[in-house]
């Protein structure tokens, strides 16, 4: 098949394909998936998701098991949303070579449930004494943290109000509360952010009522001549977080889902392509060679279809502890049998065509006949099988991951679901952790099923009407 003919064939195929609506829907979804792979860096808020998915420290700033931010739309009492505040007002004052820099981060709190934590970030070099204070809408200002940051070049420094400001907040509450309420307050049970975002006054320790309004987080840095401070920002760790919430290890699920798209596509497409190619060539060879070679090849084929696929994959994974590439190889080793039977029967018909006989009379070898004259005829069928194989490869990988035998170094939807199962998401009703990965697996399955069935319809026009 030369270039011109291929182009003609593609045009022909497209004009047929265009008529099947479900196929177009599938194609649109496929393009969306591909687009999300290309745009991954823009789509995910956590750029190191791929490298540090299982690194707990990377996710430390997120709240634990927080629902998605849009759940606020459906509830009467709003919860604080996780956000990063990068806009601030800077003021500087020089005295004796020491720079005093005041950074004011505005934060508008309009939620019934205050955030879990406020985390101040900056980087630079040298030792920098600093002070974190909060200016409340009722005019009160409280000093939360007073400490010294030892900065090293290229490393991020952060300080958390929840962890560091406990004593300061305790003092603040003591100044407002009655003696009796204080005696009932347990230091370790105190949630600092609940107090500092609450209406001041007696009763705040037992039952804090959110004080809405404009807050200002003021960070004062004392920069010595040899020290330097860069990119400060404030992270507000809310009760609801991100597009799809967080899991019990504080990971952002949206980032994981988007990062999983490329693995699903890779696993599905690679497995489908390799195994179907092998299967088609195997089927044609079996049919064309005939005789004892055909019998032998058929026996080997039957041996492979007698193996239950998932059990052998599980046992092999349990014994060999595979990486994602070996999982793909293992799947290919058992997936190739799928098209063989149909291909062989189709090839048996093609084999009897006169042009095959003619080219044999011209002295063409079996290799040439198989690859030049028989394979091209079966390519449309091969594509249909390929499209339908993609979802099963994705599901098998997810299943192997679910039982804990997958490649734990990458982020696949199966790995996320494994986390959900072991992390008690089902029991705890963390639906935003369980539903999206499965929806994505199903969606990918649907995409390829649409494309595959559309191709099937074109190839077997008989099934269109009664």
């Amino acid at each position, binding site marked *: 098949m030369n270039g011109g003919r291929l182009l003609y064939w593609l045009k022909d195929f497209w004009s047929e394909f265009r008529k099947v609506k*479900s196929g177009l829907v599938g194609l649109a979804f496929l393009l969306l998936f591909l687009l999300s792979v290309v745009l991954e860096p823009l789509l995910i808020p956590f750029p190191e998701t791929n490298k540090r998915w299982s690194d707990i420290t990377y996710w430390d700033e997120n709240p634990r098991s927080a629902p998605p931010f849009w759940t606020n739309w459906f509830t009467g009492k709003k919860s604080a949303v996780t956000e990063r505040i990068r806009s601030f007002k800077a003021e500087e004052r020089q005295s004796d070579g020491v720079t005093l820099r005041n950074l004011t981060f505005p934060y508008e709190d309009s939620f019934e449930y205050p955030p879990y934590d406020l985390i101040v970030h900056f980087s630079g070099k040298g030792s920098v004494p600093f002070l974190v204070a909060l200016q409340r809408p009722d005019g009160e200002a409280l000093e939360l943290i007073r400490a010294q940051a030892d900065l090293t070049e290229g490393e991020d420094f952060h300080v958390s109000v929840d962890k560091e400001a406990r004593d300061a907040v305790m003092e603040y509450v003591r100044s407002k509360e009655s003696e009796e309420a204080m005696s009932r307050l347990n230091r370790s049970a105190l949630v600092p952010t609940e107090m500092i975002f609450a209406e001041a006054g007696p009763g705040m320790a037992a039952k804090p009522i959110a004080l809405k309004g404009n807050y200002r987080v003021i960070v004062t840095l004392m920069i010595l001549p040899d020290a330097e401070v860069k990119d400060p920002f404030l992270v507000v760790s809310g009760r609801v977080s991100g597009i799809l919430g967080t899991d019990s290890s504080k990971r952002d699920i949206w980032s994981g889902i988007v990062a999983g798209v490329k693995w699903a596509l890779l696993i599905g497409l690679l497995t489908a392509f390799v195994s179907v190619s092998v299967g088609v060539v195997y089927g044609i060879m079996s049919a064309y060679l005939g005789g004892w070679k055909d019998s032998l090849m058929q026996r080997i084929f*039957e*041996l492979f*279809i*007698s*193996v*239950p*696929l*998932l*059990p*052998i994959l*599980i*046992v*092999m994974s*349990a*014994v060999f502890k595979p990486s994602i590439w070996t999982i793909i190889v293992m799947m290919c080793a058992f997936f190739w049998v799928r098209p063989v039977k149909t291909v062989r029967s189709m090839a048996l018909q093609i084999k009897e065509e006169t042009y095959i006989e003619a080219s044999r009379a011209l002295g063409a070898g079996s290799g040439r006949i198989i690859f030049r004259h028989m394979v091209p005829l079966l390519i449309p069928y091969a594509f249909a099988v390929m499209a339908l194989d993609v*979802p*099963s490869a*994705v*599901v098998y990988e*997810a*299943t192997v991951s*679910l*039982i*804990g*035998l997958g490649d734990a170094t990458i982020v696949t939807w199966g790995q996320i*679901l494994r986390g*959900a*199962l072991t992390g008690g*998401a*089902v*029991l705890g*009703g963390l*639906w935003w952790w*369980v*539903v999206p*990965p*499965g929806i994505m*697996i*199903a*969606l*990918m*399955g*649907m995409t*390829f*099923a*649409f494309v595959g*069935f559309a191709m099937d319809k074109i190839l077997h026009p*008989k*099934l*269109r*009407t*009664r």
Partner: protein
Amino acid sequence: MYRQYLVKRILYGIVMYVILIFVFSLLFNATSEQTARSQIEEEVRLVGASLVNPTTEQVTRITEERRTELYRMYHLDRSLLERVFYRTWDTLTLRFGNSTIIKSSRGDREVGKIILEVIPRSLILFTTAVFCQLLIGLFLGLKKAQRAGGLLDRTTSVATMVVYGMPSWWLGMIMIMFLVYGIPLFPSGGLHSSPPPSGFLYTLDLFYHMALPLLTLLLIGSWGLSLLTRNIVLGVLQEDYIMAARARGLPERNVLFGHTLRTSAPPITTIAILSLLGSVSGNILFEGIFSWPGMGNLYWVAVEQNDVPVLMGLLSITTGLYICGLVLLDLIYGFLDPRIKVGGKA
């Protein structure tokens, strides 16, 4: 003729099984032997510890003796090929050895007994599911074929594609989350309540526990079956003899159930049994989600405990069941399709 075919097919299945077990033994030889060796060391150590007032020499001699004896018993003193052959033979005669951790409900550590205990539980769930799937699938498929391109046909076809790549265990997780913990309609899992009720209530309790897994399997499985039935029936409906039957003025019911379904029976049976086999092979993890104590759950536990003998035993038994299914499929096919029955050509 059919008997000849039957004998031939069964023998062929057995040969297939033997070859596969041999391949498995070869493939997993290293791991199996490692487990066997550590089990022997454990036993030898116990023998050494049980001696009363032993001298060092005595201990070494007796443990050494015991070790060689056990090595001989497990054929570990032979060459690689011999060892593989012995392992194959042991597996074929259902002697899988002892598990490392897992015990059966009676406390047995023999892998064979552990597995035999769980097989019926898996079978009851999956055969019920496939039976229901078949009924629903056949009914829906016929309805779809009757009005191909109609509303029902199109909506159910979309449903087929929606669930096409949906893992059954994921749907199970969702069902449990919403229908067990969200709205407590169903039990969270297991075979029966504890303590299990007796008599008729026991059966009722079993069905109550089976309801949710069954519902999940039906939601996933019925659509595909109905689409395949539709396609097969549609193919048959275009045959000339159907047109002839219609031309004769036979009622549509007769045409559909008498003429069409009879011809469609072999391929539909194939699909039904293949889907049963598929659910044995593909849905095994599904049991783990529902804590249904069948084979799938045992796979799950064996993987988590890294119990190699149990895994090997499970694999060979699953393969055996799978091959039985394939043989059965061919036999039924041969029975339903007169061309094969008379021709005697497999």
